């Protein structure tokens, strides 16, 4: 089977700007994109640069954009890409600066993982004799160690522990494109994993409070790309939504995002509908709306301002009962 690999090329030491180079390959059936790249590197062009290690979708090194979508090159079949796109176009991951060719700089990604404190908080951090240390001969770990299935049974969380930190979600994340400070899907999914861990001893709720500040859980645009394109079938966005629910149930509602959701819930509880004006006021306050006066003004000229008072839906009592049922579920 003959096919073309079109690779993004950029070596900042010699190239003024990035360019694409085509390689014609004669491949074998069931070849992966990584196989193809390794074949090019060993037979045609040794300068083509990319990361790889395990070749079995477990180390997360070989993530790159393949025909525009972030994937693991070692888990992606040439055949299926050619059938769909007619070519193998490879580019570096998005939302991260390019080091060379298909290799991106990873510091900002791992910096964000570190920022959520990806370790168990509590006594082991504060008490002098419980500090992290290399175990001495015969010394036992004082905290229980969970097998993945036990962790799932305890927390209901069966996916985030499978994260291989490949950065596909980060590369596809909608918010990350426009807000480089956003913690990103992988870090927030990991945060959820620690918050749910029964061994974690976050006494003052600092994890949720910190995550509720700008650039945290409330900045997710819900574009679903992190779930769609995770090669390990993890859904960071679902973890983020669970963090929203947890924050609100623990009355951590100082953020605009929390106010927004509470506003929507209140509006549904009152009318069965979403009152666009009231939800906006609940979220940003009347003063906040002033910033958007030009938008509001133009919209009102066009007759687009929604009503402040909405007609109740028919059988509104059904919805009121749904809210009452929630309280019952809580008990």
């Amino acid at each position, binding site marked *: 089977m003959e096919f073309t690999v079109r690779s993004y090329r950029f070596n900042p030491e010699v190239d003024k700007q990035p360019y694409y180079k085509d390689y014609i390959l004669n491949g074998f059936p069931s070849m992966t994109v990584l196989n193809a790249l390794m074949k090019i590197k060993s037979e045609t062009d040794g300068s083509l640069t990319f990361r790889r290690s395990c070749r079995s979708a477990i180390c997360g090194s070989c993530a790159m954009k393949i*025909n*525009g*979508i972030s994937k693991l090159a070692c888990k992606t079949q040439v055949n299926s890409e050619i059938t*769909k*796109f007619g070519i193998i176009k490879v580019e570096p991951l998005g939302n991260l600066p390019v080091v060379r060719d298909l290799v991106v700089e990873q510091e900002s990604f791992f910096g964000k993982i570190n920022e959520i404190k990806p370790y168990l908080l509590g006594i082991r951090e504060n008490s002098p004799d419980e500090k992290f240390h290399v175990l001495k001969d015969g010394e036992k770990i004082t905290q229980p160690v969970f097998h993945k299935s036990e962790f799932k049974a305890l927390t209901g969380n069966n996916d985030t522990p499978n994260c291989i930190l490949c950065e596909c979600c980060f590369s596809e994340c*909608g918010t990350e*494109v*426009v*807000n480089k400070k956003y913690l990103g899907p992988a870090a927030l999914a990991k945060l959820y994993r620690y918050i749910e861990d029964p061994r974690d001893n976050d006494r003052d709720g600092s994890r949720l409070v910190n995550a509720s500040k*700008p650039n945290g859980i*409330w*900045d*997710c*645009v*819900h*574009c*679903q*790309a992190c*779930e*769609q394109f995770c090669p390990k079938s993890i*859904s960071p966005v679902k973890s983020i939504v669970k963090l*929203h*629910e947890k924050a609100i149930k623990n009355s951590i509602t100082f*953020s*605009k*995002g929390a106010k*927004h*959701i*509470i506003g*929507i*819930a209140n*509006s*549904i509880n009152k009318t*069965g*509908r*979403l009152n*666009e004006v009231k939800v*906006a006021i609940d*979220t940003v306050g009347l003063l*906040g709306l002033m910033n*958007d006066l*030009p*938008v509001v003004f*133009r*919209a009102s000229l*066009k*007759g*687009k*301002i*929604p*009503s402040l008072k909405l007609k109740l*839906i*028919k*059988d509104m*009592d*059904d*919805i009121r*009962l749904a809210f009452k*049922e*929630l309280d019952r579920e809580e008990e």
Partner: protein
Amino acid sequence: MITYVYYPGCVAQESGKELDNATKFIAEKLGINLLQMPEASCCGGGIIDGFDANLKLFINGRTLALAEKNGFDILTICNTCTLTLSEVNEEIKNNPALMKKTNAYLSKIRLKYEGNVKVKHLLYVLRDDIGLDKLKDVVVNSLNGIKVAPFYGCHILRPSEVIKFDDAENPSGFEELIKAVGGEPVSYVRRTKCCGFQTILIDEASSTSLSGNAIFEAQEQGADLMVTPCPLCHLSLDTYQNVAAKSIGKKLSLPVLHLPQLIGVALGGSYSEMGFSRHNVSLKPVMANINLK
């Protein structure tokens, strides 16, 4: 005549009324009977599970049960309503515990859901249930090869575990519809990216940069118009277009249509029937190109 339970969603009944009107206009022309459901509630705007996952289950389980009682599938015109209803539908159907929990609530309001309803977005009702040939047959005002940038948005494509209308990596349904009514689809990368709407009240500059980037790219690719199947995307792309221009520091001026408005124009709808006076970015410059009266 083909019948659906019509679920316009909240925005199309208020700030986006022109979408509701255009939908009804094309439904009549295409022989689609839209059964009104005045009992239906808001779906929760795609984020209500962040308040309480059970609330999402109950209110949308109720909507599904009401449709089942009526005996027809649901037709939606909002990406986010489509995803929310579809998610709940899948969750209930595949998880007996959730089915039981939802029906425990529903039984108190004399309803029951057995999982027999499908949730279909107008875009794919047109492609799959009406069919492109039938659509071509009723076109009276072909769009003359005008360049149309389809903006899919997110919730009509992703997650594809739940939303299975199209190929999430490389969708084509929208382009097929545009061609069927005589337009020329513009190809651009951001057609499947996010409009940013969910955080427009939380971080306006970032949110509108997303819509701005998409509009700018479509403009650069020569689009005369952009079209979206979602009223939330429309708010970001049209109502906030001036803010988006500021956020990305570029000049933006691209009229953005709701999907049924584009179809409606091809089926002979006039400027006022399509409610174009309600748009922020004027359609006047392109009106002659699309024979709009």
